[in-house]
């Protein structure tokens, strides 16, 4: 018994030490970005305590590329995708959860296929589609392939299925149309799912890179990630101070949001049952 307690205690200490070590390693890139961003570039590889502070990197980075426009583009993109996803996935999930229509099983399997075969790997053919439609280099072209999300449909369908039938029927008896039932009964009950899904979707599309890189080629459409890459890759070599400043600027909204809402974030995942 004592020996066991002993090993338990040693184990706990090891676990704690390991956790701290991991946390330290995991925060390092962010910590480094902060260091490099507030010191002159001569100190970007020298960590001396008395290094002078500066805000110049932020000013320079901000002026070196149209980040305001990139922010706007990303914001429009993320909003557009999320809105479309919420609407489309809700409708489809409702159909799958509560309507028995011809071909439903097959349709559901075909939807689930997109869980694995994501638009990210179909870049060549999707590019061709966009260029045939004449919408290459537009913000909708970045968003379109992602708007119908199998993940969203699947999650919401699972949730809608847990809504008691009595509630549904009660609403219908009062003369509500299927859409009204959806809005009044199902959607409010699935709120945590919407929050959790929304958070995942926002952070995914805020940071998505390869497809936007391919499909955009002008300032008025490029999202932050692509703008950042063009800004970072210059013939003149890498200036980490500027890149760090730009990194912090571009991810500041998401970082602050997470700092403020981290508890709610985890809880919404819990309630959403994404686990």
């Amino acid at each position, binding site marked *: 018994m004592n020996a066991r307690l002993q090993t338990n205690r040693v184990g706990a200490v090891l676990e704690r030490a390991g956790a701290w070590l991991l946390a330290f390693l995991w925060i390092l890139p962010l910590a480094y970005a902060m260091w490099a961003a507030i010191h002159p*570039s*001569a100190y970007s*590889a020298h960590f001396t305590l008395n290094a002078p502070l500066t805000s110049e990197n932020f000013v320079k980075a901000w*002026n*070196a*590329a*149209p980040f305001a426009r990139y922010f706007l583009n990303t914001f429009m993109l993320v909003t557009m995708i999320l809105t479309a996803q919420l609407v489309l996935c809700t409708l489809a999930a409702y159909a799958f959860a509560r309507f028995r229509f011809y071909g439903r099983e097959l349709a559901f399997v075909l939807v689930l296929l997109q869980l694995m075969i994501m638009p990210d790997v179909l870049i060549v053919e999707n590019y061709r589609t966009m*260029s045939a439609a*004449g919408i*290459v*280099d537009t913000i909708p072209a970045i968003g379109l392939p992602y708007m119908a999300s199998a993940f969203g449909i699947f999650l919401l369908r699972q949730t809608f299925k847990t809504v008691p039938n009595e509630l549904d029927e009660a609403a219908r008896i009062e003369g509500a149309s299927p859409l009204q039932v959806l809005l009044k009964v199902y959607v409010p009950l699935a709120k945590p799912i919407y929050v959790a899904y929304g958070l995942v979707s926002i952070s995914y599309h805020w940071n998505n890179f390869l497809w936007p890189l391919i499909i955009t*080629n*002008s*300032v008025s459409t*490029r999202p932050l990630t692509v*703008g950042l890459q*063009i*800004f970072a*890759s*210059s*013939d*003149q*070599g*890498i*200036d*980490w101070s500027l890149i760090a400043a730009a990194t912090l600027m571009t991810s500041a909204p998401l970082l602050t949001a997470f700092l403020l809402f981290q508890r709610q974030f985890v809880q919404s995942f819990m309630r959403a049952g994404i686990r």
Partner: protein
Amino acid sequence: MKWLASLVGGAVLALASPAVAADVELSFYYPVAVGGPITKIIDGYAADFEKENPGIKIKAIYAGTYQDTLVKALTALKSGEPPDIAVLLSTDMFTLIDEDAVTPFDPLLTSDADKAWAKSFYPAFMENSQTGGKTWGIPFQRSTIVMYWNKDAFKAAGLNPDKAPDNWDELVAYGQKLTKRDGSNVSQWGVEIPSTGFPYWLFQGLTTANDARLMNDAGTETYFDKPAVIDALRYWVDLSRKEKIQPLGTIEWGTTPKDFFERKTAIMWTTTGNLTNVKTNAPFPFGVAMLPAHNGRGSPTGGGNFYLFKKMTAEKSAAAIKFIKWMTAPERAADWGIKTGYVAVRPDAWDTPAMKQYVAGFPAAAVARDQLKYAVAELSTHDNQRVTKALNDGLQAALNGTKTPEQAMKDAQQEAARILRSYK
């Protein structure tokens, strides 16, 4: 040089002469990420040109990197609205011809003055602009490779800080003195020749010095497995493996200037386009020199040319020629070179008062010009990206020691020959 007069007195003449009838708008694709200082320079030029040439409007479109601009131009072409003018890599010439995207300048250059203008550039730059007896590109934003050295490090190693290694043997000898070892660790390397991104370009700095060519003018044949090419690669590999004055493995292009500033390397090879960057950031006195010679001397050129796209009306192409001539006039070429660090593309630009004054104050700027005498065309063939990748892979394999220089170049040549099969 009659056209020169018309440029100098442009405003007056343009008012006097019957200007191009209605307003002509030229779309002009330019490879730069928006917002930087270069955008402002180009905007300024466009505004000045419009002032001097009423009736012509320049619509500059800043498309990002060269790669982005090429993609955008080709996509626009396929959708039926090609740009009128674009600045794209000189090495994309064959790609643009194969895609049936561009039109040669020659039929549009009718007057003697026009023909003289086409001959006013450094021949080295024209090598990448002409094929099959036609001129497809006009040099504008061009560069070469030069060698930067840290004068403090030279002093500390007992070398003359004002004299750079002039040939391959000296580079090795200096490098050995400059490499600082403590135990198994090296705190300062002798030299770094970057080998990521576009290793083939830096490699041409070695092959040219070894008097070897990598491809024919038609862009249908490569000579990667010729003995002189293999020797050049062996020299590069030996800098790391035998002489141990260069880090092992591939060296990242993007971090090489930082390595130089951090004194991790005493000598670096990089583009002339880095001059301003080094001038601002190097915390020590530095020198700029031509690449060291061996059986010959020289460097490849690099950078972008003006291209004319197809499907332009006669009126538009006349306006386009006018604009390109204006942009490459000696004063502009000099101004452009001073402001950006790119090499002024024609000899008479270096005779302008502004350029003379600049070079007097900053002699390093003239090194690129002096080296142009020895410059050669950058590697460019049909299916260019693939062929250069074959060479790049071979170079990286040799530098990593997974293939011998012979084997690496033999494989690269075989692959290139396979790719180019269908273009002969």
